């Protein structure tokens, strides 16, 4: 009858599925990923035979282009990850949570298990859907990719893994900062604004730094052909996972020490 990690996971799962923001977040995620990807595929197809597009054809990766929606979808899942912890601080319910589960690391672990499970399951379904829809749009005019090619299948699977890791990354930021607004700003800055700043650095420096940015790590994970200035997909995955461990580690350390 002693409560275990599993009891905490069940508790967090009830909390996760019983608020509206989770549902709207997940719905936004599905619509953005599939919708934006399809729109981009239609645009690519309609301009495929434009004069002067020959260079585009050389670097064209039908796999990653069919999943372009990830660029926006990562903010939807990031927000879900952030809210999983900051909404508890915002409403004061963190005190109730920690009264029920005084072992604070168990709370962190349970929340991460719930988030990761939800996003990996839904994420894989969504990226496979986006990929399949994209290829059927390309068919006939634009070269297509097939899941029977090892690198293509890997890229699609890793797209779901990327989204899951980025959700946990965002969760870690929320764990440290505790407020929704600040966490979303920092998360967005790391994903969108830091790459822009790096862009202005001298190119030698730029190449060294940019491949460590979460967005670049992601693009090497979910592309079938490795983009320039990135690590191999396996290395990128490991680095991103390390970021998650580090940031959640810092957040957990602070949670242990701070008054709730």
């Amino acid at each position, binding site marked *: 009858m002693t*409560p275990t990690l599993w009891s905490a996971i069940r*508790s967090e799962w*009830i*909390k996760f599925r019983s*608020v509206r923001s989770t549902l709207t977040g997940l719905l936004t995620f599905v619509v953005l990923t599939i919708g934006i990807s399809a729109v981009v595929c239609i645009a690519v197809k309609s301009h495929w035979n434009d004069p002067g597009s020959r260079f585009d054809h050389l670097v064209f990766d039908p796999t990653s282009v069919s999943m372009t929606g990830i660029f926006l979808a990562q903010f939807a899942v990031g927000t879900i990850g952030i809210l999983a912890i900051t*909404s508890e601080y915002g409403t*004061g319910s963190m005190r109730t949570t920690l*009264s*029920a589960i005084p072992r604070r690391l168990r709370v962190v672990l349970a929340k991460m298990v719930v988030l990761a499970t939800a996003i990996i399951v839904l994420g894989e379904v969504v990226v496979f859907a986006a990929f399949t829809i994209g290829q059927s749009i390309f068919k006939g005019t634009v070269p297509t990719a097939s899941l029977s090619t090892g690198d293509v299948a890997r890229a699609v699977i890793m797209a779901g893994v990327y989204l899951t890791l980025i959700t946990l990354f965002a969760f870690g930021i929320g764990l440290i900062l505790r407020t929704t607004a600040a966490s979303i700003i920092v998360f967005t800055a790391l994903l969108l604004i830091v790459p822009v700043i790096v862009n202005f650095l001298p190119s030698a420096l730029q190449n060294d730094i940019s491949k460590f940015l979460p967005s670049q790590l992601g693009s090497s994970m979910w592309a079938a052909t490795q983009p320039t200035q990135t690590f191999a997909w396996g290395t990128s995955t490991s680095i991103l996972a390390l970021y998650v461990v580090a940031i959640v580690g810092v957040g957990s350390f602070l949670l242990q020490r701070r008054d*709730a």
Partner: protein
Amino acid sequence: MLKLDHLSKQYKDTLAVDDLDFEVKSGVVTGFLGPNGSGKSTTMRIIMGLDRPTKGRATINGKSYHDLAAPLREVGALLDAKAVNPSRSARNHLRALAASNKIPYSRVDEVLDFVGLTSVAGKKVGGFSLGMSQRLGIAGALLGDPGVLLFDEPVNGLDPEGIRWIRDFFRTLAKEGRTVFVSSHLMSEMAVSADEIIVIGRGHFITSGTVDQLTATASGTVLVRTSNPGALTQVLPATAQSEALNDGALRVTGLTAEDIGNIAFAAGIAIHELTPQRASLEEVFMDLTASSLQYGHQSPGVPS
């Protein structure tokens, strides 16, 4: 059983809790009384393992909160009724709590029924009135059928009927042999709902005892009417203080009615009235905490 062991909590430059050291007995309702800002809530948060004490510790059944395997089955607390995610339903809120401590879901419906929220169990908590939120908080505290219960300012926001209900409820819990620890800044409330009272001010212990003991120990005054007040004040010992009232009576502090009668008799002064005036609980409280008010009031009136 709840025990505080030389508990202190220091924030940057304020000592919120100052060496509190007492035991809260089971089977009675214990009031935790102090003005606003005197450290009651901080003490309760420390007991619940939410805040970390600077010194000392609080134990429940001999253990720190962190070491309780299934805390909700040993301690139930209502600290802040509004500390619930407003977009979650009452039932889901309680189910999440139940799951975390391996409490069966059937118990959720039981406690909802007990506090009278069954009909709104599926509604979002955000739409609840403060009174309803309080009742949801009580449901949450009772979920694990715990032996120790903590309530922080539970009557705030309740209507008179709710206040009466909660007083009876505390008595019932205590009669069942549980430890019931209730904080309040209202002496009048504690006078009717608590058996034992612990008074604190600015984080430190002031006094404790039953309601009767507290009023008895406070310095009472005696009202004296005599034909010759001037002569009587002359013969009273220096330790006693006397104050002439408008109607010619004297209010004497520091002596019993007996003492005053004897002194007057010995001096040959006729006494017309000799009435011991018992301090009200409210006066005792004001007296005890007067020096420890964190945020004192000016006398009423608009500053000119």
